[in-house]
């Protein structure tokens, strides 16, 4: 059985890697530094799945997540990649 790509699952929101230009724009709009963004582990299944299409994603990259929301329609969230340890 081929490995299932978690990003294709209905309940997993869309993940995008921002390029440095977009990254800068987002941080400027939010008026914050990167360390104040919510974090996501490099070992997170969504990042691993994203790496299949995008290539290696380094810690410090900003991920844009677009979620479906019953009240807001669409909600955008940003998370910065960190190299956390996980037990596997």
């Amino acid at each position, binding site marked *: 059985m081929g490995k299932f790509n978690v990003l294709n699952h209905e309940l997993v929101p869309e993940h995008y890697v921002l390029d440095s230009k977009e990254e800068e724009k987002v941080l400027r709009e939010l008026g914050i530094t990167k360390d*104040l963004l919510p974090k996501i582990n490099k070992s997170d299944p969504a990042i691993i799945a994203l790496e299949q299409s995008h290539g290696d994603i380094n810690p410090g990259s900003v991920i844009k997540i677009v979620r479906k929301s019953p009240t807001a329609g669409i909600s955008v*969230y940003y998370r910065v990649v960190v*190299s*956390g*340890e996980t037990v596997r």
Partner: protein
Amino acid sequence: MTEGISKRIYRIQFALLSPEEIRKMSQIKIITADTYDDDGYPIERGLMDLHLGVIEPGLKCATCGGKVDECPGHFGHIELAMPVVHVGFIKEIKTFLDATCKRCGRIKLTEDEKKAYLQRINALNNENSDIDSMSLLVKRITDEASSRTVCPYCDAQQIKVILDKPTTFREEGIKVTPKEIRERLERIPDEDLIFFGMNRTAARPEWMVLTVLPVPPINVRPSITLDTGERSEDDLTHKLVDIIRISQRLRESRDNGSPQLIIEDLWDLLQFHVTTYFDNQTAGIPPARHRSGRALKTLVQRLKGKEGRFRSNLSGKRVNFSARTVISPEPFLSVNEVGVPELAARELTVPMTVNRFNIETAREFVKAGPAPRDQFGRYLPGVNYILRPDGRRIKVTKENADENSKRIDIGWSVERQLAEGDIVLFNRQPSLHRMSMMGHTVRILSGRTFRFNLAVCTPYNADFDGDEMNLHILQKEEARAEARIIMKVQEQMLSPRFGGPIIGGIHDHITAMFLLTHNNPLYSEEETVHMLSFVDVDEMPDHEIINGKKFYRGRDIFSTILPKGFNIKFRSKLCSGAGEKCEYEDRIEDKDVFIKDGKMLTGTIDEASIGPFSGVIIEKIYKKFGPHEGARFVDRMTRLAVGFLSTRGFSTGITDYDIPEEAVKSIAETSRKALEKIGTLIDSYNKGLLEPMPGRSLEETLEMEILGVTGEARDESGKIASAQLGLSNPSVIMARSGARAKMLNISEVAGMVGQQSVRGGRINRGYTQRTLPHFSWGDIGAEARGFVESSYKQGLNPLEYFLHSIGGREGLVDIAVRTSRSGYMQRRLINAFEDLKVDDSRRVADTVGAIIQFKYGEDGIDPTRSDMGKTLDLNYIEFDQKESAEA
């Protein structure tokens, strides 16, 4: 964000105290277990030595020379005869022993492995990532090292160390003494410590085995003198006495060469005392007890749990300017008010700083003395104390009031008693949501209880079966302003939980409004005037003239409390609640409540209109006309209800459930049929003829079939009973209007109680293969498994009664379990969320500024201001505009 902050914590470091450090911070070495001599004077080098601080007035500290409130207390120390392990570090000691070589002391990793791990540790350190990932890495490293059975450096074979809880380590069954443990820990080289997450500058592993014990200052463990003059020592002192005694005996035995067995026993005893000194609830050892049998409260017990230092003294404190008493109802108060007994009001004060604008008022207050009354003997606020600018307190009495009123001047402070109109905070525990503490304005009443409007029972979850509530008097102008603007009851009428009203009419209010509006009855002028005298009306409603007499319609009377310009149309509960198809579906008069420009045209007012949680009228008035009108509507509605019921009257009783003989017979017939059906089901099960449902076992299928039959029987008999009980029946009125109880409860009383259940199934517990000894083994018939054929009114037979109690108990147990569990969950949520904040860009961030949500709740909507969770009720807005334009 950093305005006004002069100091900020840069970091906190946790470290272990080394033996040298303990000795260094100690003022005196304690060598004797005695405390006081016969004259009651502290014994030198005893546990109460004067070097450890003073708590008795008159004595001076031998260390700093300070008197009682000047000396902060000083540590001493005890030299333990033999080392003992520290219970708090058992886990860490085990990890160290497991992961290092028992001979050479080095971590059991090769140089290459060490290098690789060191790199990862440094990477994590530089990244400043969270502690969790570091502890995960450390765990992985130590796990790997522990799994090695041969030392990569000295090739020594490793023996597995087993922890015999709480504090004994064994190797192949042989005890490893704390002394041996300490020696092994000493052998671990400094550079290996980083792999355990330990920082050499802060700690050494062998410090987790104690050789020296710090003795806390006496300020920490003061002795108390009882009324009899007897001295009673603190639990910690008792424990320290034990430790010194055993340590002494151990030293003597060791020095005079006693048998090894005796030494080991004493050593274990010392370990026990030191362990319980830290934590007297260590699993695996009996807690040390007082002579009276009470378990000692030692260090951990002082901090832990609900009664511990954190939850009892730091997160929660006792406060001044508060009162607590029993609550009772008072329908003539507004929802915004609270009745405070005179007795309490005389004790509770509001400070008034005297300035050139209020000095005359202040003088008048003081002049009135501590217990003034007006010419009719009614309460007036007085003054208990005045404060001089230097802070000195002067008690105001009847005698000195006049003189004191002349003395006060600008800069003085006057503590005025509670007055009508003051804003106070009112609270009932458990404070589960923000409406558990609301602002009320004071009304001074006689009696001894706090009183408030019944509509406020819901947010506080209060009733009057002995409930008590707390009152807090605000002391600052800013606090009072905040309370008035955001905490007042009228500001809290909508719940942030579902964006609807949490305040509304209950019980009799709903019954009354139902009776007043259902079928739009006529009331004579006398009756109408009586009802409306409870409400402040400007003019009488429209009337009709019948036989030359004035009559008023119920809906018109109700309309008098509706604001002008109010429009609404919605389905009433009466029509929406009853089963598949509403019997009122075709009667426009009853189906929809229609209000146009503040005049009620059709429908019946019930729970759906004015109840808490669902009351549409309350919600829409509040949203259209604001908090003041919302509160005013509730105030007038509750008063009108009382006015109405005091002329019409309303009562309920067991006769509500009288049904004709034929109905009783037909219910009996229903239950007979059900029993018969269950009999055939069991029969076919026994014969193996029952077809199992998909995915179910035969037994499960049978149970489900039987539950279906019993459910049907109950519903059927409920229908038969209800058919006899119409809307003229008070119990039915209460159920159908939503005032209290459900139709199901009525059918339980009049029809049949039905199947009792535990965990969703028929009752199946008690004796071997039967619920009670009255049944034969393996009886799975209806009666044997909790089918109650009787109605509450008929009464249950003893067997039914017993099985009914089993089912009833489940409910009680559920509630007990649920509350404790949800309470703990809520505590954790509160602690996790307490410093999150929504800023003006609707972003949720913590105190550091780290973002939690980019938009509060993804949509930035405050649920309190939402429309039952939705952003807007466009349908209503459109409807309202259309109706308003027509009017």
